């Protein structure tokens, strides 16, 4: 199964990798130059811009400035398919191509008086007659009222107009399918968590999936949501916050699956590092994103390597996904590796959850089998040949020799069967019921062994519950393995004490000692039954001590609250 998953992951990576490789460019961009001021002539193709400056650090407050970029078109377009130009530029601007106004994005120079207009990303058609092979000039008349330090052209692309318009939508569609998968997984695991509130890894995984979904949703919303450049910072802040959440939660999840020493302190330190990255350099969003994701990878890698070192289940496959995501980063760009890597890591996390679910199912099935087995064992006590046939043989003898006593014997036997039937399908019964069972058992044994058995109890709280058959089992052991006192009797005593943090039952057998060979035997089925019953009802919150004493035998059961 691991192998299949791995092949699948690899083929997805290969696909993404090949789609990332672009075809030959159809244009070459030369250096962009700027000049503050406003002259219509600056748009013209042949204007001498030798003395224009490089990108200014700050644009004059709300005033118009120009940029000119020489471009070489390497290929002429097919006829009837015009070229288009796509720009990401901060500000409101007009676009001139070889001196001709081909588009307007807002109202340059009038931002202070007019309401915001235009988009951060805009596509314009280049007239067909101005797209011959050779040098062309792109001139922009810009004003930058809101973020004067964001001068410059952030993205410039020339291609067939229809391709420019559809390509990104197609890419967005695919990314949304990718994100949609995580949305569904997120809901699925949220519901699983709600049905079992102890499963925090499921909740964390659900949140991680949702954050990745939201991240993709917002990153790719730019292609269809018109956004004024002044609002772009909000988008970037949202993306950074989502990355902060993802960068903390993924290693946190791994720390739950692969526990390591000083987990809490290391997580606090890690959260501190993330917060520092998040808070320094207010507008350096690329810096923040890269460093947060790098920290995520490094910290997760450390945890998973520790998991592999301690041979924790599933750690190896998760390590492979982490290494793969790093390989994707080294082979492609940060943007591609971010989504591929997150996808891979989430798959790894999902794999761990599936292992957990499988382990839980097995444990549950085991507990069912164990419960049934214990139930059978309790039922078997009274039908196993040694008890039943010996009892019946004695009974026949009593009926033949002393019919009245035989009737009393039958009544005691009926009582014991009745009590066993009542408690047969319970995991906990009132202590009073268990004591009644012990008393009826002693009565039966008295008829069989013709010995004087007596029962005492001390401090019993009849409201207390205990697993069925445990004192009955101790009683059976006491009868079987004890030598009677001189007056042919054996005395049993059950003492209950309640303390602040535990309850204690002491079961004492007063006899002339243990039959030779009984005490050095390995754990018998009776003791196994008692321990399994205690585990079934109290997990590991119990103690069982069984030891010989001067006067016979002592068993102590402690149940911790």
């Amino acid at each position, binding site marked *: 199964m691991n192998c299949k998953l791995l092949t699948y992951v690899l083929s997805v990576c290969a696909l993404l990798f090949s789609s990332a490789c672009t075809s030959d460019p159809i244009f070459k961009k030369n250096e962009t130059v700027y000049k503050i001021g406003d002259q219509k002539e600056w748009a013209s193709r042949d204007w001498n811009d030798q003395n224009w400056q490089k990108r200014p650090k700050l644009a004059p407050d709300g005033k118009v400035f120009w940029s000119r970029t020489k471009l070489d078109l390497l290929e002429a377009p097919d006829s009837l398919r015009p070229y288009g130009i796509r720009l990401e530029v901060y500000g409101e601007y007009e676009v001139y191509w070889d001196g001709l106004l081909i588009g307007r994005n807002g109202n340059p120079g009038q931002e202070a008086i007019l309401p915001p207009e235009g988009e951060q990303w805009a596509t314009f058609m280049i007239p067909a007659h101005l797209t011959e092979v050779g040098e062309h000039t792109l001139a922009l008349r810009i004003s930058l009222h809101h973020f004067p330090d964001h001068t410059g052209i952030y993205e410039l692309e020339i291609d067939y107009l229809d391709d420019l318009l559809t390509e990104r939508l197609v890419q967005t569609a695919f990314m949304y399918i990718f994100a949609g998968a995580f949305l569904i997984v997120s809901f699925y695991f949220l519901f699983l968590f709600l049905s079992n509130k102890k499963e925090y890894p499921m909740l964390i995984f659900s949140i991680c999936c949702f954050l990745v979904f939201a991240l993709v949703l917002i990153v790719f919303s730019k292609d269809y949501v018109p956004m004024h450049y002044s609002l772009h910072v909000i988008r970037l802040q949202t993306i950074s916050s989502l990355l902060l959440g993802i960068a903390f939660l993924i290693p946190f999840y791994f720390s739950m699956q692969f526990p390591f020493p000083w987990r809490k302190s290391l997580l606090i330190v890690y959260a501190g590092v993330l917060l520092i990255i998040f808070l320094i350099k207010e507008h350096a969003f690329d810096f923040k994103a890269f460093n947060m994701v790098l920290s995520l990878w490094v910290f997760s890698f450390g945890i998973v390597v520790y998991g592999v070192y301690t041979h924790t289940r599933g750690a190896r496959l998760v390590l492979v996904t982490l290494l793969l995501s790093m390989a994707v980063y080294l082979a492609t760009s940060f943007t591609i590796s971010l989504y591929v890597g997150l996808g891979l890591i989430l798959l790894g996390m999902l794999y761990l959850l599936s292992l957990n679910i499988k382990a839980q199912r097995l444990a549950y099935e085991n507990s069912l089998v164990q419960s049934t087995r214990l139930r059978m064992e309790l039922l078997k006590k009274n039908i196993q*040949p040694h008890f039943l046939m*010996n009892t*019946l*043989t004695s009974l026949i003898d*009593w009926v033949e020799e002393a019919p009245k006593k035989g009737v009393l014997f039958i009544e005691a036997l009926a009582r014991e069967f009745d009590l066993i039937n009542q408690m047969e399908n319970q995991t906990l019964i009132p202590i009073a019921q268990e004591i009644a069972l012990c008393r009826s058992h002693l009565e039966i044994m008295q*008829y*069989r*062994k013709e010995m004087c058995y007596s029962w005492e109890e001390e401090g019993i709280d009849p409201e207390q519950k205990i697993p069925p058959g445990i004192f009955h089992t101790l009683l059976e052991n006491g009868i079987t393995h004890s030598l009677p006192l001189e007056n042919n009797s054996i005395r049993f005593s059950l003492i209950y004490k309640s303390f602040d943090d535990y309850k204690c039952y002491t079961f004492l057998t007063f006899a002339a000692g243990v039959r030779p060979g*009984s005490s050095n035997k390995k754990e018998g089925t009776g003791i196994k039954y008692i321990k399994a019953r205690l585990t079934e009802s109290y997990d590991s919150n119990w103690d069982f001590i069984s030891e010989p004493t001067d006067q016979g035998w002592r068993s102590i059961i402690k149940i911790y609250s």
Partner: protein
Amino acid sequence: MNILIVEDELRIAKRIERMTQEILGDSLQSLNHVDALPDALEFIRNNPLDLLLLDLNLNGEKGFDLLASAVSGSFHTIIISAYKDQAIHAFEYGVLDFVPKPFNRDRLEQAFNRVITKGKPEDNQIKVLAIKKRGRIQLIPIEHLIYVKGAGPYTELFITDGTKELHDKSLEKLEQLLAHSFERIHKSYLVKMSEVKEIIVKSGSKYMAELKSGELLPIGRTKYKDLKAKWV
């Protein structure tokens, strides 16, 4: 007859005792009861015994340890047990009878009759003979046994590998246990019939059985007729 009852349930032990006395009457020489394995072994070592009545489950201990050493003794063993499923196993060891609990007087009497009339066990599935060797019990598979020779109160077992072992039971008792595949061809010999190659008649009405190994064993004159009627 000297009988030992090994039973940890007092009421049942009393029942067996009472019925034994009723059934055997005057032929009973001694009747004893112990309720634990160590006591039983001690008793067997120090007292003459003809019959052991044994419960297989004593105070939580399996009686098979005692069974192996009991069947190697000179006396017969009858099991009285609640575990019917152990009957086959017990017969394989060479017990004379297996009385399942709960039992009545008739069933017990039937078991005693086998001892008294030298009857053969119905479910004869004996697979091993237990022998005492250097203080330990060794089990010899019946399939490895060729013939048994009487030696006073004891017997000698002749085994396929050419060795012979001493057994505490008399030839009569072994004849009873091995009845399904062995024949008493002589007052001193009990032979597995599948090992006999042919019967040779010698001068003077002397008969010999030639075994597959080439060994010749004498056949008693009276036994010859029975053999002829049964096998030829």
